[in-house]
């Protein structure tokens, strides 16, 4: 047991992405109603079908109730007190990066995501989303040579309406849940990816989401389609300034994998988490789901969740195609008064489908961290297999960890294996490392990284290093 006085003093490293960009933005009035939705749609010059998609979602949302089954406690969200559209003021039509407000470029520079041609990352194409709009997408032309479409979803709605009409909402219908319905009604921007048949995307694609405005919600929507025998690795990063109010983030991500296609989706979520007293921070209610439609298709989710005051997120896989594969690798770290209820759903429908779940929850401070996962084996999923491993690590004695595994099987010829463990960093382990000259905090971070290694190994290389660093930063001072 770690001494009480060792863990009492819980302070997080100051959040280094907490700055606000002073930029004039165009905001619509607060609140949500049919007119607001029409306004958003018209601001974006959307085709009729999309307006209908939104209005239909809004109707469904109005008839729904906010879910309360998660192990989360927070003050009720006033949906009429949120601004649903906020965009930095800039020229109507931007044709090149030179026309983007330098302040915006500077913002992304500061976040470590340079967008200009001289400085941009050479091996990753980036779609940068600032509040409600996509600012820029790099390497578009180079990707287009391979037939890969990578653009903001707003552009896709205009230029690739056939794909949007076919797939938008096909994995997560508006009626799916409260937050998905809200997103479907008001989503402002997000990323769109299309990988044509037999193409291995020549570079990693990534979206960087930045919330800047304090009173507007962010509702982005991402759609990734991988055609037969194609593959793509997609990375997502998020940060927000420090405000003492809570900001709602309700995103929807849909992935579609056809025969032999594979999508790897990695997230490092570092939204502002609120201060040590639990004031402020992002409310993160996200619906992410992939559909393995094709035979032998594969969807792999990896996430490192370190931010947000509230996290409600269950990246899932619907395993439809024969021998399709779903994976979920997650590290969720909570500190101070953060609350996370996160996990996955693996829905096995096709025969010989396989899924792997590795979840590592780390709770420090007075935080609460729950894993909630469903493994469902349908009646036709003969020979389906699942392996789940859910480990929790407690740092100090005021944090809580819970595991809620749900297993439903309608097929006797299937295998579901579940392992769970809870550990506490013991004083003896810390003393052992210290007695070899390793500083206390480094000892803690070594043990935490060690605990997360199975998941970090699944992340793209640059991301793994970043995630490791991020965890150490987040935990700095949390045990000392």
């Amino acid at each position, binding site marked *: 047991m770690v*001494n009480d006085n*060792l863990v009492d003093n819980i302070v997080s490293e100051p959040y280094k992405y907490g700055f606000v960009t002073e930029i004039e933005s165009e905001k619509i009035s607060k609140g949500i109603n049919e007119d607001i939705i029409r306004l958003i749609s018209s601001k974006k010059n959307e085709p009729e079908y999309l307006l209908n998609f939104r209005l239909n979602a809004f109707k469904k949302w109005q008839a729904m109730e906010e879910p309360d089954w998660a192990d989360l406690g927070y003050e009720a969200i006033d949906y009429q007190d949120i601004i649903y559209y906020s965009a930095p003021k800039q020229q109507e039509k931007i044709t090149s990066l030179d026309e983007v407000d330098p302040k915006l470029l500077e913002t992304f520079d500061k976040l470590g995501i340079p967008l200009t041609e001289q400085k941009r990352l050479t091996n990753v194409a980036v779609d940068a989303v600032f509040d409600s709009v996509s600012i820029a997408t790099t390497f578009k032309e180079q990707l287009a040579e391979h037939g890969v479409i990578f653009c903001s979803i707003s552009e896709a709605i205009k230029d690739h309406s056939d794909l949007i009409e076919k797939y938008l909402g096909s994995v997560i219908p508006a009626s799916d849940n409260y937050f998905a319905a809200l997103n479907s009604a008001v989503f402002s921007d997000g990323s769109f990816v299309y990988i044509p048949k037999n193409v291995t995307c020549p570079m990693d694609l990534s979206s960087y989401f930045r919330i800047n405005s304090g009173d507007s919600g962010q509702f982005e929507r991402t759609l990734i389609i991988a055609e037969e025998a194609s593959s793509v690795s997609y990375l997502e990063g998020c940060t927000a300034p420090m405000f003492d109010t809570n900001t709602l983030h309700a995103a929807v991500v849909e992935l579609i994998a056809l025969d032999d296609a594979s999508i790897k989706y990695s997230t490092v979520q570092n939204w502002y988490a609120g201060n040590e007293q639990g004031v402020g921070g992002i409310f993160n209610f996200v619906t992410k789901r992939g559909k393995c439609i094709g035979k032998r298709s594969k969807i792999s989710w990896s996430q490192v969740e370190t931010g947000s005051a509230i996290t409600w997120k269950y990246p899932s896989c619907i395993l439809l195609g024969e021998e399709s594969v779903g994976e979920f690798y997650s590290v969720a770290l909570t500190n101070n008064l953060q609350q996370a209820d996160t996990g996955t759903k693996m829905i096995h429908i096709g025969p010989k489908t396989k899924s792997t779940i590795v979840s590592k929850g780390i709770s420090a401070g007075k935080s609460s961290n729950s894993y909630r996962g469903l493994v469902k084996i349908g009646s036709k999923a003969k020979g389906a297999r699942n392996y789940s491993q859910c480990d929790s690590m407690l740092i100090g004695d005021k944090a809580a960890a819970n595991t809620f595994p749900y297993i439903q099987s309608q097929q006797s010829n299937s295998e579901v294996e579940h392992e769970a463990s809870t550990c506490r960093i*013991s*004083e*003896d*382990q810390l*003393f*052992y*490392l*210290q*007695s*070899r*000259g*390793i*500083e*206390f905090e*480094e*000892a803690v971070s*070594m*043990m935490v*990284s*060690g*605990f*997360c*290694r199975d998941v970090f190994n699944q992340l793209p290389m640059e991301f793994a290093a970043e995630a490791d660093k991020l965890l150490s930063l987040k935990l700095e001072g949390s045990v000392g």
Partner: protein
Amino acid sequence: MKSKKETKKPLLEIHDLFASTENLTILKGVNITINPGEIHAIMGRNGCGKSTLSKIIAGHPSYEITGGKIKLSGTDIEPLEPEERAQAGIFLGFQYPIEIPGVSNLEFLRVATNARRKFLNKEELDTFEFEDLVKEKLEIVKMEPTFLDRSINQGFSGGEKKRNEILQMALLEPKIAILDETDSGLDIDALRIVASGIKKIANENSGIILITHYQRLLDEIKPDFVHVMANGKIIKTGNSELALELEKNGYEWTDKFIDKT
């Protein structure tokens, strides 16, 4: 005039040391002085305070010094954190080395070695330089390099754990190494490997404390001094002959030396 043979300053001085844990006094006035190049053995029954003494020197947070002093090369170490003591050259070989899942042995050894090197104002070693160094040291304890890829002590046999301790000692080059029952749980072959490792590391500038129950380790490594501990104190000190006498007569024979007051 300077004497021809420079008098060496003591490495470790333990003076009238009292210590307790959870309000229980365990050490009741321990005195030991260790000079460079000396090997001391501390023997005694279970519960006599041998392991506590070693943990106190290393700075275990569960124990509290309630009286007396511990000095390393003349400096009081009480205010130092365990990691600072280690960096300054105190090494504790654990009786039960701790398993740390997920943390690679290699990475651990490298971070520890660099922490010590940094203290000594030596350049820190990068991954490649360290691998060369560690391969050299592996020979001392006859370990395979595959050992390095495993998590710290996880799934190691008793002998492997102890050899890993000696490997750490070899890398850290401590001023004072306290080896707490490093011989326990070892078969004869493993004991020989461990003992010959310790002998290879021992040098005229450092001191070693062997805490043990058995003569067989002392057959391999001949101590300069043997201390018998009972009831939180050192009740008798002698040379290596004393250990042989103990082996012959048992601890009961030493009971007469216990100060009953």
